[in-house]
């Protein structure tokens, strides 16, 4: 009984210092186990040759030497990742454009906004399937429409190594644009009407107004749109798995897909090599993560 009373008083005395750690404990434990520790384990595995079952064999940097020393599949995947990154960013201006178009108060506009946002709610697997049918050679709606203009893509958009990646990116842009649109619609709602009026009195109109008055005020929305779009571009896996499975002739592989293919597919279980690809992807992502965190840190300092 005495110890219980002592414990209690110790807890009482240190309540404010101890409570946050008690509240953090379950969350941190889960996050460490499933997210933080696995990152380091992947680094470790990438120095080995491992089939996922037997013993790991230490190979040092051999996986990286092979990867960066002229692995054709790696090069294709890497450049496709760059394409994804650059083209995916189009979702931001496109989203802004649609948001400006829809930022009116006419009848039924709420429903229009919801329906424009619709593609984002659907799973990427379904969007991927939908676009696969949209792109079907000869009978797909896309092919029918381009046919009117006399354009014929050999083997269909997804069957042609020159167009397949762009076809998939376009499919990915559909929901991503919807996301950026909703961010900007919310942002536009918060634009200070007095500043807009003041600028109007000063004779600002149209694109001048947009560039010098509106877009600076939309900065928080743009930041989030940028973050989610970059992350989305580097996470592109579902679309590729569903739409082309990396083909034709491996032309649509990206790093995330190539990693999966090496470690967990009918081509074998090269976990060590897969982990090395994941580490490279991780470092590419880390560049952006560092920038995001740095921006957030500046905000935090400002708030204090």
């Amino acid at each position, binding site marked *: 009984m005495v110890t219980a009373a002592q414990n209690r008083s110790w807890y009482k005395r240190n*309540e*404010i210092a101890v*409570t*946050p750690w008690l*509240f*953090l404990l*379950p*969350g*941190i434990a*889960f*996050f460490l*186990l*499933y*997210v*933080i520790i*696995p*990152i380091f*384990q*992947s680094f470790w595995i990438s120095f080995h040759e491992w089939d996922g079952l037997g013993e790991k064999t230490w190979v040092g940097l051999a996986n990286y030497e092979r990867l960066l020393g002229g692995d054709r599949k790696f090069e294709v995947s890497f450049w496709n990742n760059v394409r994804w990154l650059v083209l995916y960013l189009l979702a931001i201006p496109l989203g802004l454009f649609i948001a*400006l178009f829809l*930022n*009116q*108060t*006419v009848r039924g506009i709420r429903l*229009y906004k919801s*329906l424009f946002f619709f*593609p984002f*709610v659907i*799973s*990427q*697997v*379904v969007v991927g*399937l939908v676009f696969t049918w949209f792109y*079907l050679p000869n*009978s797909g*709606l896309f092919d*029918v429409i381009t046919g009117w203009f006399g354009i014929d893509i050999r083997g269909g958009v997804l069957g042609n190594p020159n167009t397949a990646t762009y076809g998939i990116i376009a499919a990915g842009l559909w929901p991503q644009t919807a996301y950026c649109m909703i*961010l900007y619609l*919310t942002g*536009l709602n*918060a634009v200070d009407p007095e500043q807009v009026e003041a600028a109007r009195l000063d004779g600002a109109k149209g694109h001048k107004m947009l560039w010098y*008055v509106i877009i600076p005020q939309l900065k928080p*929305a743009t*930041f989030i749109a940028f973050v989610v779009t970059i992350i989305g571009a580097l*996470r592109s*896996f*579902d679309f590729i798995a*569903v739409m082309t499975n990396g083909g034709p002739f491996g032309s649509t592989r990206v*790093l995330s897909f190539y*990693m*999966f293919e090496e*470690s967990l597919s009918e081509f074998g279980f090269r976990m060590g090599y*897969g*982990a090395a690809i*994941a*580490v490279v*992807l991780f470092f590419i992502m880390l560049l952006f*993560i560092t920038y995001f*965190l740095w921006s957030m*840190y500046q905000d935090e300092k400002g708030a204090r």
Partner: protein
Amino acid sequence: MFPAPIQKSSRRWRITYQVLLPFALLVWLLPLLGVMLFSVKPASDFASGNYWTIPASFELFNNYGRVFFESDMPKYLFNSFVITIPTVIGAVALSAMTGFALGVYRFRGNLLIFFIFIAGNFVPFQILMVPVRDLTLGLGLYDTKLGLILFHVAFQTGFCTLFMRNFIRALPFPLIEAARVEGVAEWRIFVFVVLPLMKPALAALSVLIFTFIWNDYFWAVVLTQGPNAQPVTAGITAFNTQFGVAYHMMSASSIIAALPPVAMFFLMQKHFIAGLTLGAVK
């Protein structure tokens, strides 16, 4: 307001806008309308190459009925619910606590822990893949719903903590101080003072996580196989083999698979959008 309200512009532009609006929507949703059309067509339409014509016969009940009674679809749907709902509860509960700890208390390492949660949430899935699969195998949870749930809860806690912490930061702090002066225990402050104020954040995160988890494909493929544990996103690709190129059946199943998050979105739109903007854009 920008752009200038349409009511203030010329009559001609007003009419153009009213016409343009439904037309733009039609173009925007064209791929989706195509699938809806596919899903009510009979098989014979595809056999004869009439992909985009008016259906020769209206097969809505037939196609959707077959998906429900002649495929594993109900099983996959059930799995999706069994995976998604506990994940939502788990991630929201854990992050309400971490968010409270990081949002209310000042202590060394606060910001560091917060940033680790955010950074972990942005990491590519692939760097977690091999070790998480290994861990799940080791726990004997490979190809079980629980294995997926545990991982999802852990991973989503990162994102949810970001959201919860920022939300709690914006709450009026004097309320908490007043309770402290009254001598209320810290955990009671959490339950009786902070939690009731967090209802909007709880709602926003719940709908958002529901959609994220329902739509997850990657982890479903990595941690499960077959209709015993796989959710509907993974199941639907299995239909590719079951139905072959039966576009009408595939379309019908896709639409069914997409329906729960869509319903969720339309029912809880306000919360959903609040969640998506990460609470940073007001």
